[in-house]
């Protein structure tokens, strides 16, 4: 579940120096508060564990000038988590009968175990934007924008190596309108499940001044 990006604001003078990096031990997960308890909890309890298990990757936004927290660590201004995922589809049901029969026969011709479950015919690979949140201290500073763009950038980088048709997420109720504003579109008959194709992401990231 992804928190909505915050409304952008004009850059103010004296902006802090912001940077992204993978979540590490020197980041203080304990003091992060975004306003959604479960997103705080996920960062504090799951993020390191799941990253160690290579299940997902959590990136954090931090300020270079920030003073260390009471725990002597770097404060986290925001974070997002990416996972490999699939969009389960009925694509296979759209195939002509003879094509599907041939595919099933081909699969069954292999000795055990079956080499695949007809993927990608039943599942389309995507990058799942699992969580996105900024610390409530940063409300109104546009950090949600930064987190989303970095998430899309990391997803696009990953797609160059393993292929992913787009980014999908399950938004919160209030986030649905905002993600729509970014170009995400709802799909499926699930509540608030949204998708942005990798083509559209590349189109947007072409505007980056890398």
């Amino acid at each position, binding site marked *: 579940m992804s928190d909505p990006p915050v409304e952008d604001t004009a850059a103010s003078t004296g902006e802090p120096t912001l940077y992204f990096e993978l979540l590490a031990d020197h980041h203080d997960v304990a003091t992060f508060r975004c306003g959604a308890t479960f997103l705080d909890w996920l960062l504090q309890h799951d993020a390191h564990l799941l990253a160690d298990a290579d299940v997902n990757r959590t990136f954090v936004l931090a300020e270079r000038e920030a003073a260390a927290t009471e725990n002597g660590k770097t404060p986290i201004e925001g974070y997002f988590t990416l996972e490999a995922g699939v969009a*389960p589809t009925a694509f296979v*049901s759209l195939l002509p009968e003879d094509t599907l029969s041939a595919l099933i026969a081909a699969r069954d011709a292999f000795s*055990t175990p079956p080499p695949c479950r007809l993927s990608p015919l039943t599942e389309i690979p995507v990058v799942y934007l699992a969580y996105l949140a900024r610390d409530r201290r940063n409300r109104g500073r546009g950090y949600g924008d*930064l987190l989303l763009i970095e998430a899309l950038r990391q997803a696009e980088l990953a797609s160059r190596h393993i292929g992913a048709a787009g980014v999908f997420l399950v938004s919160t109720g209030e986030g649905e309108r905002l993600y729509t504003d*970014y170009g995400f579109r709802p799909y499926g008959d699930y509540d608030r499940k949204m998708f942005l*194709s990798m083509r559209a992401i590349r189109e947007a990231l072409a505007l980056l001044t890398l």
Partner: protein
Amino acid sequence: MSLKREASPTETKADRIYIRCTPRHKEKIESAARTLGLSVSDYLLSAALATVEEMRPTETRAEKAEASEALRESATVSTERLSPIDTKRLLAQIFAQPDEPTPRMRQAIQHYNRTILGKRGGISE
């Protein structure tokens, strides 16, 4: 392709299974079945068989034909998958030429350019 799959001509649907559920679950199931043009019985049976397939730890060669059928049915009517109509929508999004980035997206990119890619910021690789 028809979504409704009939039992084998050599089999008859003589046995019955009764289940109890909450009104909310019943309504959800009926709605999903209607969307797919299936009876509630066919819908529940298909979903259950698909689950049996997914939870099967090992698969003997003799069971493969049945498994293929379950796979096919699960891809067609499982509640965990998109309906064919929604799949078409998703594929259309994937293969369509992308729209221009929205004004909101452009605004976010500009903010990122200014804040992260500026002289002082940094990005992770």
